[in-house]
């Protein structure tokens, strides 16, 4: 399913995140990259250097927006001001699809600036799906929701994480940004089999895939995005591509960021697994 309704019927290949330390390299050397993912909120400004850089990037490259603060899963309504700014950016980038996380992060107007885990309840699924639909109708662009890494589970949960993800995307009729690393991290933190997760989601809804590195602590794994992708995650990625087909894939590297070439080289390893996927 390389091109589907959830990624705007595109076939984007292997991308990397657009990050500040790489700006000058990209603008000067103009390396060949399939596409860049931007963090929407970093460019939801009125003027200045961020937009200047973005416009130069847009002249040369395909760009997809990835958000961190819509908070589809927050119990409170969508923030209209936020959506207005986001829509302005969508028009600027012409992103064929837009992603944000299946999480919450604000309460009563207070922002945690974190991607907090959902209680996996039917009530939460209904609220979240409704908000995704509202956002999509307003933004007029397909939306993919990303599974997050988590470190806590709730007593109140009524289903597994992958059942919750499936419930939400079916109710919202939206896409999935499948973060393979996040599944791995959460599987270790919550003692489930990550392949159960990969096998039991609606594969036809996957519009994009994320890969990344994580850090190992004594009692849990932390999603740090400051390492190359680890072998178990590559294995899961291979399995996922076997299920969903050759799908737009992005490497996230957000901390201790090495050179552009190193990040790009790491991302391109994904090609080994996307060359000739065998659909399972």
């Amino acid at each position, binding site marked *: 399913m390389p091109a589907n309704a959830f990624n705007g019927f595109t076939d984007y290949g292997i991308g990397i995140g657009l990050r500040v330390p790489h700006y000058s390299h990209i603008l000067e050397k103009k390396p060949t990259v399939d596409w860049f993912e931007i963090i929407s909120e970093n460019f939801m400004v009125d003027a200045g250097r961020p937009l200047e850089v973005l416009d130069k990037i847009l002249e040369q490259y395909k760009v997809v927006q990835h958000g961190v603060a819509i908070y589809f899963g927050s119990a409170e309504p969508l923030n209209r001001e936020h959506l207005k700014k986001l829509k302005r950016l969508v028009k600027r980038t012409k992103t064929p699809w837009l992603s944000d996380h299946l999480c919450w992060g604000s309460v009563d107007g207070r922002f945690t600036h974190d991607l*907090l885990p959902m209680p996996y309840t039917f009530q939460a699924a209904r609220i979240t799906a409704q908000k995704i639909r509202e956002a999509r109708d307003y933004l007029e662009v397909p939306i993919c929701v990303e599974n997050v890494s988590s470190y806590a*589970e709730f007593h109140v949960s009524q289903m597994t994480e992958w059942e919750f993800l499936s419930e939400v995307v079916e109710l919202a009729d939206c896409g999935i940004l499948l973060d393979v690393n996040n599944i791995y991290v959460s599987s270790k933190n919550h003692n489930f089999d990550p392949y159960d997760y990969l096998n039991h989601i609606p594969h036809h809804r996957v519009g994009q895939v994320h890969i990344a590195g994580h850090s190992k602590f004594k009692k849990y794994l932390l999603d740090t995005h400051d390492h190359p992708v680890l072998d178990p995650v590559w294995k899961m990625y291979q399995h996922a591509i076997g299920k969903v087909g050759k799908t737009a894939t992005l490497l996230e590297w957000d901390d201790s960021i090495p050179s552009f070439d190193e990040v790009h080289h790491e991302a391109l390893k994904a090609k080994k697994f996307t060359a000739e996927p065998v659909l399972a």
Partner: protein
Amino acid sequence: MKRSKLKSSPRNPSSPEPERLQDLAAIQKLMADAIMRPLDDDSRMKKRWADGVATKDVANTFIKPNDRLSSFERLEIYNRQYWFRILDCFYEDYPGLRVVLGESKFNNLAEAYLSATPSESFTLRNLGARLIPFLEAESKWTKPHQKMAIDMARLEWAQIEAFDIRSQRASSLKHLAGKAPSKIYLQLQPYITLLKLSYPVDEILLRILKDDDMLRSEASNAVELDTGPAVKSVAARIRPKATHLIIHRVDNSVFFKKLTLIQYRLLHALQSGENLEDACETAFKGVKATASHATKLQDWFATWTSLGWFCLVK
């Protein structure tokens, strides 16, 4: 600064009522209260909830333990991440204030400010948006350097604003030619801040930012900073001195520039809506008029318009 009187403010949450913890909003409110509570002196989650019950009992009501971590420990991961994240951001945004106050006082201020005024914006860029009124209202965090601290906070916030606030079409000398000064109304660009300070804190900041060309010249705050002993000694030696600054941007890089008192008055009067003639009168009030004033004015406006500082008032 007025604090919320709600019983369940982030610093003073009451322990949960178990029967309500089925509801999404109630769970999220409780978890947000927990993770936004300040850490203890060892940077761990506080053992006691605000109303005195054990935090582990609160955590047990809604967070599942696993075979390695208790409910308390799992919640603590989020509590610590929250504080590390916002403190890091605040730390990066206010290198000058750090030098003025010293690390220990700055850390206490950061925790007090961020507890009292949690972020109300989707972006961490706005974390310091309410810092100046907080510093004005709560002198205990900055004394005996309250004035200098407020001056520095104003300068650093003005830089944040100058970085990405919209610009309007700039006016040029051509727009002004042939018009009577009493009919000319000029407005400063929205991203510009004029500052009247009691201390020359710009001198400290220039020492911190090793190269003033680097002032927010990239798309983030990430510049090479020097907050070492030499800079600290400059801050310690600094004495009160009326200082007038303009914080602006050129080619999307942020700069600050010293102004004379007359220049400040003139720009301030224009910003306040006075026409050019009245603004000049305000600026030169009490100053003996000389022939060189007209030349000076011409030079200033030539420079200022070339920097794109003005936009015409419609």
